[in-house]
């Protein structure tokens, strides 16, 4: 299977099952599109007709192009067949090892964001803080169920984790005390709204946190409209200076500033560029996760607007990169040469199997987005995973488990998508969130174009600045 697209003057061909990416000219683009379905003589006739004003397009140049295509096919870099379905089945039979926990250290929050999927941090339940003893048991559970895995991840999540900061610090100290004895290496991460960020938190986080997510939605008017304090005031003025100091002290590495865009700002690019102009160079801007009828929900009318934002973003990133003022957008950070292996692409995010969420009372869920859904409770940190049928359901949830993904060119990039989004959209973790799929495909096209463009000299067709 191949996928072809043109964007900002670049014509790209992706060979889906080898992962090969080809930058082609117009003639090659047209020939490849028809190559598998058109008789060779007819193809030659059509191309000579279409390019009759181009003296470089001749019978011999077409024959040369056909030879190049056949050479790429022989190298398994073009028109590669899908031979991975059995790999996915075998992978399902593997032993389950847990390698990451999302610790919900606080089911409470000091902001009242209107679109919060976690219901203002409470996950549809009572306010709660995780005790040190529960967190310690969670870390013991992780060590005991991680098999031969050396790298273990622990996210401090909420709600707002800084509302339970002392427990976070004690849990880091406990985990560090067990590293040498167990041969494990813990990587901690923190997601915060920044309200309680101070010098002490900054110093500790910059020493111990492998990565930090800072929540900011863009321009002051956008951010303050949705991310308010309980008394109804905006939080932009409170957090932006703190984030800037934090990132500066962190040396500008291993963080990202993450925004959420909604129906209100489907044209999100000005908000994202505002974040870049504030000096943040690691950015993420995500479509809101909420019920379809919610006022914040993205609509079908928003779809072309959002796609245009993604395309303009790619052009602007390219322009700024060439001017030496680049920034990174997480969905465009495709690592073409050192990216994930096929097993990872088949397994996806690992929710419900190698990645679990832990509530303040120690209950286990497949991931943070399932917390508070009684049907998805998997066990607890004392008994372990007791709902093994649910775990097996998640284990078999590869890209090959979804009929809708069969003919999708992006399936080895998304791995079948987000199980929580699928469940909320279709009622099944084996369904798909079709709107999200369409956005994902657009993002991957932009990401591929950007990666190709960064390896090339500037093209005259590259768009003017936004």
């Amino acid at each position: 299977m191949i996928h072809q697209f043109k964007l900002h003057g670049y014509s790209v061909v992706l060979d889906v099952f080898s992962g090969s990416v080809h930058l082609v000219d117009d003639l090659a683009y047209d020939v490849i599109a028809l190559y598998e379905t058109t008789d060779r003589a007819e193809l030659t006739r059509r191309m000579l007709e279409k390019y009759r004003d181009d003296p470089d397009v001749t019978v011999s140049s077409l024959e040369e192009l056909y030879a190049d295509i056949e050479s790429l096919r022989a190298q398994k870099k073009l028109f590669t067949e899908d031979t991975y379905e059995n790999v996915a089945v075998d992978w399902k039979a593997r032993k389950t090892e847990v390698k990451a926990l999302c610790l919900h250290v606080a089911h409470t929050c000091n902001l009242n964001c209107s679109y919060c999927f976690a219901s203002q941090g409470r996950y549809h339940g009572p306010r709660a803080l995780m005790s040190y003893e529960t967190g310690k048991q969670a870390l013991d559970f992780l060590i005991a169920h991680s098999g031969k895995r050396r790298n273990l991840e622990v996210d401090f999540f909420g709600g707002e984790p800084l509302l339970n900061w002392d427990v976070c610090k004690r849990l880091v100290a406990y985990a560090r005390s067990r590293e040498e004895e167990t041969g494990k290496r813990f990587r901690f991460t923190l997601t915060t709204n920044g309200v309680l960020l101070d010098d002490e938190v900054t110093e500790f986080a910059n020493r111990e946190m492998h990565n930090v997510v800072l929540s900011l939605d863009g321009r002051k008017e956008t951010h303050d409209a949705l991310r308010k304090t309980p008394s109804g005031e905006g939080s932009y003025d409170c957090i932006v200076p703190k984030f800037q100091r934090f990132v500066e002290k962190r040396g500008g590495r291993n963080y990202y500033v993450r925004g959420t865009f909604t129906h209100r700002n489907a044209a999100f690019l000005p908000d994202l560029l505002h974040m870049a102009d504030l000096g943040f160079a690691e950015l993420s801007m995500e479509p809101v996760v909420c019920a379809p009828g919610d006022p914040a929900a993205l609509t079908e009318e928003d779809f072309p607007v959002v796609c245009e934002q993604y395309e303009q973003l790619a052009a602007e990133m390219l322009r700024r990169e060439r001017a030496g003022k680049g920034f990174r957008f997480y969905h465009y950070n495709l690592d073409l040469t050192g990216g994930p292996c096929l097993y990872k692409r088949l397994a996806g995010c690992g929710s419900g199997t190698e990645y679990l969420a832990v509530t303040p009372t120690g209950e286990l869920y497949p991931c943070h987005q399932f917390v508070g859904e009684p049907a998805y409770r998997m066990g607890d940190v004392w008994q372990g995973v007791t709902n093994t049928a649910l775990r097996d359901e998640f284990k078999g949830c590869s890209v090959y488990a979804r009929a809708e993904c069969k003919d999708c060119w992006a399936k080895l990039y998304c791995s079948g998508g987000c199980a929580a989004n699928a469940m909320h959209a279709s009622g099944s973790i084996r369904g798909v969130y079709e709107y999200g799929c369409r956005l994902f495909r657009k993002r991957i096209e932009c990401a591929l174009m950007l990666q190709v463009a960064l390896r090339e000299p500037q093209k005259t067709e590259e768009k003017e600045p936004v």
Partner: protein
Amino acid sequence: MKRIQTIETRDLQQSLKDGGCGECQTSCGVANQPCEHAKEQKD
């Protein structure tokens, strides 16, 4: 210019042989996670 320029990418077929160590970070975009195995080899 050549009509087809192939960009260097990780060979997914080959990754069946040299991948699968499971030491990579979990993800909530799969395709942009660096392969831990490849990274450690590089280091």
